[in-house]
């Protein structure tokens, strides 16, 4: 019912709740990867396809939330952080989902199988990258607390420390990435050259999930630092 109360229309939807929800969905995409590669190693093609379908569904959900945020964040809103920073953060989160989708899509469309030379490296690498994503999501969950404390004070400092840890974790995933790349290059003469290129691309993409998670952390750092 209509009233003269301006308070009812003063508040926009909380972008931070939407951001948290979005990150949870993006993480769900990444969480499918270990199971996907396990199935690939076993040769269980139907499981591979099932996991790929999951990823595609989650990525669609992420896109929907992304659209919702964009639609409800006009420039006339007063936000506790820079609007651009917020949208960039969302963009980085979205890229996690997108790149996971690329990985799953390529694996299925090209009906790829894991080359022998990298079989022992692939799961540790994927697991390390997903760890980074998981920790990034934990940091994003702190957005509510950051809002309550005005993005400053002890809460902001502890989140800063978490982001430092995230940086270190991403470094570790980088090293795993180099390990698997090295293994691939050592094995490449025994492979179809086209496959080599595509596997290199896959390794890059998997590494990107960790990179984008780190970028999420860095955007958060901007939000804390800028006031």
């Amino acid at each position, binding site marked *: 019912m209509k*009233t003269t109360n301006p*308070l009812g229309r003063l508040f926009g939807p909380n972008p931070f709740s939407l951001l948290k929800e979005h990150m949870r969905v993006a993480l769900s995409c990444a969480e499918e990867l270990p199971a996907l590669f396990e199935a690939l190693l076993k040769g269980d093609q139907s499981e591979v396809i099932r996991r790929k379908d999951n990823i595609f569904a989650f990525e669609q959900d992420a896109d929907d939330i992304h659209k919702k945020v964009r639609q409800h964040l006009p420039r006339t809103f007063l936000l506790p952080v820079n609007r651009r920073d917020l949208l960039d953060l969302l963009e980085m989160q979205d890229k996690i989902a997108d790149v996971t989708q690329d990985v799953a899509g390529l694996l299925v469309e090209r009906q790829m199988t894991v080359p022998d030379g990298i079989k022992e490296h692939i799961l540790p690498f994927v697991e390390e990258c997903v760890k980074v994503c998981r920790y990034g999501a934990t940091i994003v969950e702190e957005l509510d607390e950051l809002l309550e404390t005005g993005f400053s004070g002890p809460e902001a400092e502890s989140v800063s420390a978490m982001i430092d840890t995230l940086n270190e974790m991403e470094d570790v995933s980088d090293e795993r990435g180099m390990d698997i790349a090295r293994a691939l290059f050592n094995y490449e003469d025994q492979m179809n050259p086209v496959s080599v290129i595509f596997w290199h691309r896959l390794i890059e993409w998997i590494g990107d999930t960790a990179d984008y998670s780190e970028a999420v952390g860095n955007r958060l750092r901007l939000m804390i630092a800028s006031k």
Partner: protein
Amino acid sequence: MEIIVQYGPWFIGLALLFGLYMTWGVGANDLANAMGTSVGAGALTVRQAIIIAAVFEFAGAVLAGGSVTSTIRKGIIEPSGLEANPEYLVYGMLAALLSAGFWLMIASQRGWPVSTTHSIVGALVGFGIVGIGVDSVNWGKIVSIVISWVASPMLGGFLAYMFMQSIRKLILNNPDPFEAAKKWGPYYIFLVGFVISLVTITKGLKHLDIDISMINGFLMSVLVGVITALAGGYLLRRAQRDLEAEKDYRFASVEKVFAPMMIFTACAMAFAHGSNDVANGIGPLAAIVSTVNSGGAILQESTLPIWILLVGGLGIVTGLVTMGYRVMRTIGKKITELTPTRGFCAELAAASTVVIASGTGLPVSTTHILVGAVMGVGLARGIGALDLRMIGKIVASWIITLPIAGVVAALLFFLFKGIFGG
């Protein structure tokens, strides 16, 4: 003179009718807006809000409403030009009541954020210019009133900002926020009791012929503050930590401490609202009653009869109970952003500002001050997203309300003049 004597009872009857209509509207809309914040934050049920509102709105009207009522009744229109035709004052006041009430009804149907206070003041100015003459309006007073309309939301915002920062420093940034909240909570509750009683005792009680010296007033306020703090402290000690909820949100237990604290700010809001907005309905009523009772002599110094304040309080509470119920229920869903910590800051800031304005006899808009206070919390980076266009809509509502209320009041003035003669 003769018209007053001839139609006196009619005028009083109409004045009561229109006055009650006006205060009913104030209760259904304005007060519901003010109490809705506490309901929305989950601190009160709608039923509890109604009970609190009934008691404290009444108290605010009777104990602290005299100053603003005086302003509305005799501070805006300079009645010296009316010596020959005192009935004009009656027509004008009736017109103002009807015009403001009517405008409020239209605006609330359309959802425009207009203020009852602005409507009454605009209506009075309109009647003054048209009915008597441009000089009949006390322009000095009008200027200070308009300045207060701009300054009061800003003051509310400033206070809310400071309160939010202090809560962060003392409570939220503490390693154990829950314990810090229980420790500092009573001090904030003290503030609620202290500020409200300070302004009321030192400024508001004059019309009840109770004169209290500054020092005694100060000490009494401290006492009231301490009593409320002790009552609050008792309630807070019963608040229990919710470890499950804390896993999702570290400050969940702090919010549980602030929820009962909002009961006190709800009382303060109702009291403050009563002190300022009851005047909208009964200021004109009081003017009409005193003019009729004195047989047409425009008295400047007559005191405000208590029964008029009681009528006003009754009207507001009736409005709240009949229609405000629905408003309060709906508003809660839209302001889920206003958690108890934030709602407490906004309400305390708004209530303090309104009571200060009431003490100085300035009629202000409680709702707009509350918006200002919420903006203050937003500026302290405490709210996810605030629509700044609302400021534009509120300013636009000022710009429309004043002339429309004025013109309608002028037209009604001529209508009454036509009906009753003079």
